[in-house]
C-alpha cells in the first residue's frame, strides 16, 4: 500500500503528459484525417492517389516503426531535431489521421446523394454543401467510430515511453523498478488507463445523445 501511495504522484505527472500529448495529437490527427479524406474524394486523380498512398503506408506499418522513423530516422538526416515529445505527438497525429481519414471518407460517402443534389440545386457551391449539409450529418454517423479510434490512439501513446517520453507508462516503468513492486504498480497503471478511457467513452456517448439525428 505504501509503495502505491509513494508512486501515485509520479503516475499522476505521467498521466498529465499522456493527456497533454493525446489532446494535441487527436485534434491534429482529426484535422489531418479531414484533409486526407477530402483529398481522397476530390475530383482529381493525383490527389486521390497521394491520399491513398499515405493511408496505405500508415495502415501497412506498425506504429512503433513509424515512431522510430520519425524520431530516429528523420532526426538522423540533420535538417531539424525533434524532441521526443514532439516526435511522439507527430507520430500519434499522423497515425490517427490515416485512420480518421478512412472513417470520415466512409461517413461522407454514406450520406445520400440526394442531399448533395438538393443543396447544389439551391445554388450552394460544393464547399458550402460539404460544410453545411454533408459534414454535419456525416459526423453524427461517424461519432462512435471516431471514439473508437481516439481510444486506440490514447493507448498508442503508451508506446512513446520507448523513446523516453515521460508519459504515464514511462512513469509506471520507473516506479515499478524503483519500488520493486511491479505487480501493484502495473495494476494501478492499468486501472488509471481504464478509468481515463471509460470517462472518454462516457463523454462520447453524452455527445452522441446530444447530437442524435432526429
Amino acid at each position, binding site marked *: 500500500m505504501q509503495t502505491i501511495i509513494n508512486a501515485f504522484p509520479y503516475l499522476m505527472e505521467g498521466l498529465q503528459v499522456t493527456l497533454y500529448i493525446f489532446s494535441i495529437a487527436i485534434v491534429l490527427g482529426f484535422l489531418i484525417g479531414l484533409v486526407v479524406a477530402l483529398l481522397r474524394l476530390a475530383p482529381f486523380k493525383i490527389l486521390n492517389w497521394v491520399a491513398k498512398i499515405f493511408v496505405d503506408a500508415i495502415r501497412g506499418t506498425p506504429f512503433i516503426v513509424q515512431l522510430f522513423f520519425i524520431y530516429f530516422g528523420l532526426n538522423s538526416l540533420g535538417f531539424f531535431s525533434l524532441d521526443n515529445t514532439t516526435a511522439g505527438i507527430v507520430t500519434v497525429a499522423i497515425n490517427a489521421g490515416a485512420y480518421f481519414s478512412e472513417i470520415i471518407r466512409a461517413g461522407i460517402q454514406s450520406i*445520400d446523394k*440526394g*442531399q448533395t*443534389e*438538393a*443543396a*447544389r*440545386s*439551391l*445554388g*450552394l*457551391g460544393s464547399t*458550402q454543401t460539404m460544410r*453545411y*449539409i454533408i459534414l*454535419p*450529418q456525416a459526423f*453524427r454517423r461517424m461519432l462512435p467510430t471516431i471514439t473508437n479510434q481516439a481510444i486506440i490512439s490514447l493507448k498508442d501513446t503508451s508506446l512513446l515511453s520507448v523513446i523516453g517520453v515521460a508519459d504515464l507508462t514511462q512513469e509506471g516503468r520507473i516506479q515499478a523498478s524503483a519500488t520493486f513492486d511491479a505487480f501493484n504498480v502495473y495494476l494501478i497503471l492499468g486501472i488509471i488507463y481504464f478509468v481515463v478511457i471509460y470517462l472518454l467513452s462516457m463523454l462520447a456517448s453524452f455527445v452522441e445523445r446530444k447530437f442524435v*439525428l*432526429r
Partner: protein
Amino acid sequence: MSMIRVENLKKSFGDLEVIKDMSTVVEEKEVICVIGPSGSGKSTFLRCLNRLEDISGGHVYIEGTDITNPKVDINKVRQDVGMVFQQFNLFPHKTVLQNVTLAPVKLKKGDQKAAEKKAYELLEKVGLGEKAKAYPGELSGGQKQRVAIARALAMDPKIMLFDEPTSALDPEMVGDVLDVMKQLAREGMTMVVVTHEMGFAAEMGDRVLFIDGGYIVEENVPKELFGNPQHERTKAFLSKVL
C-alpha cells in the same frame, strides 16, 4: 427571350445513350408537363436543365445563358432554377425553418431575420406554418414535399423544376402537393413538371411533352396530346395509363 431553350440535347451514361436528341422551348409563365414510360429519359431531361447531370451534347439556355458553357457560374444560374425531388431530400439535421432559410442566408440573399420572415410566409402558403420548428423526420411525406417546395421558393426562382413530386407519396397526400403546385402555376411560375399525374398534366399543363426512347416524341397542348395523339408510341402509352 425564352426562359428555357433546349437545342439538340444529348446525354449518355458511359455507353448508354439516355437522351439522343431533344429540343424544345419553354416561355415565361408556361407550365410544361413531361410524361413518358419509366426509363425514357424524362427525369434525366429535367436534371439537365439545371446541370445536375453533365450534358453530353447540345445546348441548354436558361434565360439566354448557355449552361453547357463551362465558364458559366452554374451556382448563380441554379439560384434562379428551383428543383423539387421525388424523394424530397430535405436536410434531416435542420428544422423545417432552417431548411427553408439555409440557402438564402448562406447565399446572402438577405439577413437571417428577413429570410425567416419570408420562410414563415412560404410555409404559411404551403399550409405548414405551424411546423416551422419541427424536424423533417417528424413530418409525413406530403408535408415534407410541401416544405421542399417552400425551400426551393425561398430563393425566388424564376423557374421551378419538379421531378415526379408525388410519386413517393401515399395517395391521400398527393392532393395537398398538387394543390400547392396548381397555386404556383396560377401565380405565373414557369414550371417544368415530370409527372405520372395525367390529371394534373391535363388540367394545368400549357403543353405536354411525351418522351420515349431518348426523344421528345410528341409535344402539344394537353387537349390535343391526350385527345388526339399523333404517334403510335404516344397512343400505346396513353392507352396504358389513362
